[in-house]
């Protein structure tokens, strides 16, 4: 290991800074969540792995000669598979954000905070970092012991390895992130020859640092203190929302007992007070105290407790997915007004979005009047107005277009340009002159209409109004 890195990575852990580490945000104990195995842990691992796979893999996908998903900021265009969006299409992005937000509302009302437990980037990267930490430092007990012991060569080595791996992983994350905004293959080539631009470098390091800080250090504190969703999600909750809950009636009074003991005879409930559910909790809470806003519904406590119940020979589900209604013996209602309202909203917005994407005209025409002169009289006595047309081809294919104009009888269109041919995403400026006979002009300013039609596709057309000024 390179010495420089060792020092750098190990510094934050020096004993003087120990306190800060424990109270990065609020004064609290560092949490060492115990590793869990079980059905939900596997589901979570599946979620985490597929989401990480998507995040790191998607920028490398190709589609029709370009990166499949690329929010090309330098070139000011977004590629989403076959769809190319320009800054003028900002509305679609706003639509997408609204759809994402509504989906989150809908899912929250239905299934509670499963977003937090399975899909939130904060959770996903924290899981990845925890995994690295476990591989390097060992399990919970070993991590505790290591943190408590004085600094020695081994501790420095282990900590340095962990941080070096974290930093590498973070930088790769930063690189991938930037790869969503500038073509990743070129970015990779520039990285290999160490020729990254200053801004790209800055954002890779910035995002990498954010990943390292959030997933390595802040962890559950982000959920507790910084996450807006954690604060307002309870507004979407009702008594029929899926929550993770401890079955008070069944578990209490809690207490330790022998495996063979008849605990009902002893007056005990099913909870053996082993605190496994507390030890696995990444946010360090006790689910047995009831629903708490710190709970990110990661379901680790379900797996832990099921495991204990199996060992004791009791039924599983002392801690389980349930609803408040079900917990109190009621019937669970999945379809309820709140769900219907959210679903209707969502469907409406999605249909509008799909419709407008399908009917999007991938052609734009802007008409700018020559500002220098209102009009000019030509040598053969006609009135001339000069315009600059800006043709924006928002399609992915090159097109040539025919231009027409109407609005004044006998109006003539003159242009020095032989053909209006625009490459995909290109803008072409077309200077044109309009000639009209003065006797045909009704007023000082008349309306004219430019029409632009693609030669290979009659449905691809736009019209744009302009003023024609006369004497």
């Amino acid at each position, binding site marked *: 290991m390179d010495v420089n890195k060792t020092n750098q990575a190990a510094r934050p852990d020096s004993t003087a800074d120990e306190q800060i580490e424990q109270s*990065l*945000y609020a004064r609290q104990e560092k949490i060492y969540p115990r590793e869990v195995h079980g059905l939900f842990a596997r589901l979570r691992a599946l979620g985490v792995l597929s989401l990480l796979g998507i995040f790191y893999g998607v920028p490398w996908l190709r589609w029709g000669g370009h990166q499949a998903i690329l929010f090309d*900021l*330098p070139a000011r265009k977004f590629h989403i598979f076959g769809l190319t969006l320009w*800054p003028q299409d900002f509305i679609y992005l706003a639509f997408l954000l609204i759809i994402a937000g509504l989906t989150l509302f809908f899912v929250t009302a239905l299934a509670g905070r499963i977003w937090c437990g399975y899909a939130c980037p904060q959770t996903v990267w924290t899981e990845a970092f925890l995994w690295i930490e476990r591989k390097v430092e060992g399990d919970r007990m070993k991590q505790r012991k290591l943190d408590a012991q004085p600094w020695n060569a081994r501790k420095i080595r282990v900590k340095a390895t962990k941080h070096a791996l974290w930093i590498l992983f973070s930088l790769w994350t930063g690189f991938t992130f930037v790869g969503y905004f500038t073509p990743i293959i070129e970015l990779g080539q520039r990285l290999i020859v160490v020729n990254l*631009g*200053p*801004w790209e470098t800055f*954002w890779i390091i910035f995002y990498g640092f954010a990943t390292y800080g959030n997933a390595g250090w802040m962890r559950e504190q982000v959920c507790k203190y910084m996450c807006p969703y954690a604060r307002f999600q309870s507004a979407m909750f009702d008594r029929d929302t899926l929550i993770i809950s401890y079955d008070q009636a069944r578990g209490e009074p809690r207490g330790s007992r022998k495996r063979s003991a008849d605990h009902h005879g002893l007056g005990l409930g099913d909870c053996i007070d082993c605190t496994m559910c507390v030890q696995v909790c990444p946010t360090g809470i006790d689910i047995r105290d009831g629903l708490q806003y710190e709970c990110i519904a990661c379901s680790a406590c379900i797996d832990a407790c099921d495991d204990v119940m199996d060992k004791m020979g009791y039924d599983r589900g002392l801690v389980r997915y349930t609803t408040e209604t079900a917990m109190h013996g009621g019937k669970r209602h999945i379809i309820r007004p709140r769900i219907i309202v959210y679903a209707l909203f969502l469907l409406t917005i999605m249909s509008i979005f799909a419709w407008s994407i399908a009917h999007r005209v991938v052609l734009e025409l802007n008409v700018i009047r020559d500002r220098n002169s209102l009009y000019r009289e030509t040598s053969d006595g006609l009135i001339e107005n000069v315009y600059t047309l800006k043709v924006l081809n928002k399609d992915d294919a090159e097109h040539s277009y025919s231009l027409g104009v109407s609005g004044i009888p006998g109006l003539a269109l003159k242009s020095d340009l032989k053909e209006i041919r625009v490459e995909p995403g290109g803008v072409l400026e077309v200077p044109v002159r309009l000639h009209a006979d003065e006797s045909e002009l009704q007023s000082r300013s008349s309306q004219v209409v430019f029409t632009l039609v693609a030669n290979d596709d009659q449905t691809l057309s736009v019209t744009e109004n302009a003023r024609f000024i006369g004497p």
Partner: protein
Amino acid sequence: MSGEEKEIPKLQKCIAVLWPSFLTAGAATGLFFSAFDPYDLFPFGEDTGLSRLGIYTIGFFLFWALTAVSGIGTLYFAITNCLRYNTSRRQD
């Protein structure tokens, strides 16, 4: 007075200011630059040697500075007003 102020850790205050302003600055940057192309804003952009990415970045940090200043204001008034309220109540 300073006794109560100490109850909110410095770091917590910093995050309370920097984090929401970071989010709003991000949104503002997105809105602003989808309406204006940096190269149209600064016709000499290419001469200054700044790429679009560079101008976006600077724009983002300017927005962040602006929103953070407003955050500091909010925090300052929230704390001082709250303290004044508490002290005046205690004297009653």
